[in-house]
């Protein structure tokens, strides 16, 4: 049992996966020798050697495309895309091949890889180092898209993604990579040998992050702790009781959790960094209205990034949903 940051927890999961199954390989830019620009893959090269922990040429399509072949041959590739904004060169390989290989092979040869993407803003980075492309993948059939928020989830979900037969887009909220520590048990969260329900459910269920009854905030990644903070603030300032749900799985969405939390609270807000139009928030909002509109006392609100390119970093605080914007968004729904 140790107190780990998300980076350390991810690293732990990788070590565990590598030691449990020698078919697991890792490839990406600068992942081996240096352990990745965020150090998520540190120590793997030394422990498992250059045949399994691979610094590749600088080509995202090449990385993902060859990983399709690796997986076809029976390996379990974990791919790192260095930053969110550099996943686009691999877009064709991801949505046309990774997503459709299972379908095209009668479910026999899914491209069973994990594509890890450190994503989102808030780290004062240059252009294309702060994008949130998750909705593009959620809208591209054949993928699972997940995003952990806590170190413990990060570890368990990454292990689940690796053992899971279908391809998983694994969004890592880089802003909270080192933002806090959490106890992460040394015991494995499930039996890695079998793709059992535990692993699958880690990739398809939401998590209650904070209790509350007046309104529920649905968020994921770095906006979860902000939403919790906004809830605390509204508790202190106005005595309102806000529930926060960490979506965790962006495709498929945990529709049961979403609708029952929304019904229970009667008011809901969705929060994410990605642009608003046709984002995850639009889907969550639609699902809630479609299914439980009569339980609602107000339309579902959205606090999201704007429909603009992620700004240069001096303005990223203007772009990113802040505690205050989330709180105001909640108040708007509350006062409807």
């Amino acid at each position, binding site marked *: 049992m140790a107190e780990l940051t998300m980076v350390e927890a991810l690293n732990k999961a990788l070590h565990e996966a590598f030691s449990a199954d020698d078919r697991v390989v890792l490839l990406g830019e600068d992942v081996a020798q240096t352990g990745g620009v965020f150090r998520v893959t540190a120590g793997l090269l030394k422990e498992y050697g250059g045949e399994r922990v691979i610094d590749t040429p600088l080509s995202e399509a090449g990385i993902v495309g060859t990983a399709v072949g690796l997986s076809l041959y029976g390996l379990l590739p974990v791919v790192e895309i260095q930053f969110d904004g550099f996943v686009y060169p691999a877009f064709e390989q991801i949505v046309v091949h990774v997503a459709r290989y*299972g379908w095209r092979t009668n479910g026999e040869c899914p491209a069973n890889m994990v594509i890890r993407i450190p994503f989102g803003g808030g780290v004062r980075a240059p252009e294309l180092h702060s994008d949130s492309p998750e909705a593009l993948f959620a809208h591209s059939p054949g993928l699972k898209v997940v995003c952990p928020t806590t170190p413990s989830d990060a570890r368990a979900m990454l292990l689940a993604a690796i053992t899971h037969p279908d391809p998983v887009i694994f969004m890592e909220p880089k802003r909270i990579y080192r933002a806090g520590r959490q106890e992460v048990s040394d015991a494995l969260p499930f039996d890695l040998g079998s793709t059992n329900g535990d692993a699958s459910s880690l990739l398809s269920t939401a998590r209650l992050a904070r209790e509350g009854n007046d309104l529920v905030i649905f968020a994921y990644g770095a906006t979860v702790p902000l939403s919790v903070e906004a809830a605390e603030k509204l508790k202190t300032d106005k005595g309102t009781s806000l529930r926060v749900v960490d979506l965790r799985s962006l495709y498929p969405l945990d529709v049961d959790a979403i609708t029952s939390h929304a019904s229970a609270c009667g008011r809901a807000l969705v929060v994410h960094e990605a642009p608003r139009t046709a984002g995850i928030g639009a889907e969550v909002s639609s699902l809630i209205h479609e299914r439980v509109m009569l339980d609602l006392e107000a339309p579902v609100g959205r606090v999201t990034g704007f429909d603009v390119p992620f700004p240069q970093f001096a303005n990223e605080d203007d772009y990113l949903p802040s505690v205050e914007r989330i709180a105001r968004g909640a108040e708007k729904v509350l006062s409807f």
Partner: protein
Amino acid sequence: MSTQEPLRIIGDGGELPDHPVPDGLGEKELLELYRWLVILRTFDERAVMLQRQGRVGTYPLYWGEEGTTAGALFACEDADWIFPSYRQCSVGILRGLPVATVLGWVRGYGGPAGFYNPRDYRLGPICVPIATHLPHATGVAWAAKIRGERTASLAWFGEGATSEGDFHEGLNFASVFRTATVFFCTNNQWAISTPVTRQMATRTVAEKAAAYGIPGIRIDGFDPLACYKAAKEALDRGREGGGPTLIEAFTYRIKAHGTADDPSLYRDETETQKWAQLEPVGRMASFLRRLEILDDDKNDELKAEAKEMVAEGVRGLESVEQPGPEVMFDYVYASDNPWTFTEGLEEVNSVARKPEAAPPQPPSPPSAGDVEIQPGSGAPGVEEA
């Protein structure tokens, strides 16, 4: 690095001399390779007929390119993985894939009626998006290398495919990780209506190997033995740790790009007729006759066998039911279907099902493309005259 004059084995029995049969090909093997050519030719001609009859959809003809497919495949060991593009759609039948499955694919069937398990035949799915299967071929041979196994891979693609980024990335990874991958380019000089001179400034495809520090071999793509020899040497070299090879099979697209295409719109078909003289099936037959390995009887027998094989496939196709709507959902994930699928299937099942639609008929007006578009009877919502 690259050979500018295409390698040729089979001559014309006249001025052009035959060269020695490549090592390892005895009478039996030569006949077997010829049998493969006949099968591919028979399939192709039958598929075109089926398309004309409206029994399958748009079909990418390969008449004249049988040597590039059969010759290269003949060089592969059973354990080697092969990656076809749409133009090699039928190659799987030479590895035991049912003819009916390939025809099912052309008829627009998904699920087991049109798709297959690649691991059963070490055969990648038929690849429609140009060049994107090249990194997959690299990955498979790379995986074998990582696992310490001697499996090689071979991918077919056209000269048009060399313009895509995936071509470059697939070859570069293969060269850096020295994977046993053979990149087999059928330079048939046309990409739909675009001539090879518009694809590249080099005179040959083989020259491009220099960018990866790998061998680039140019062969006569109408010569099945040249295709065999080049592929065999490349596969052997790859398995010995010599890395990948780029092979350019120089040939010509004798027929249309696909059944929806009318090449007379963009090229001189008298030129085509000249190239057609070089077609590999007749050429191989003449060669075998010169070697006295083939006679009329044997030839007729092989043709009859091939015809029956394909006919059986057609019967198989006709006996398969159109897949039900669940085929859209059932194979997308290997794990449990998400709730969205359950709801989707319910929705689909809630309405009456249309009868199976006929594949499209030959186009009018002509289209150069992959799809035949018919003038409609007029769509509602658009004011009609």
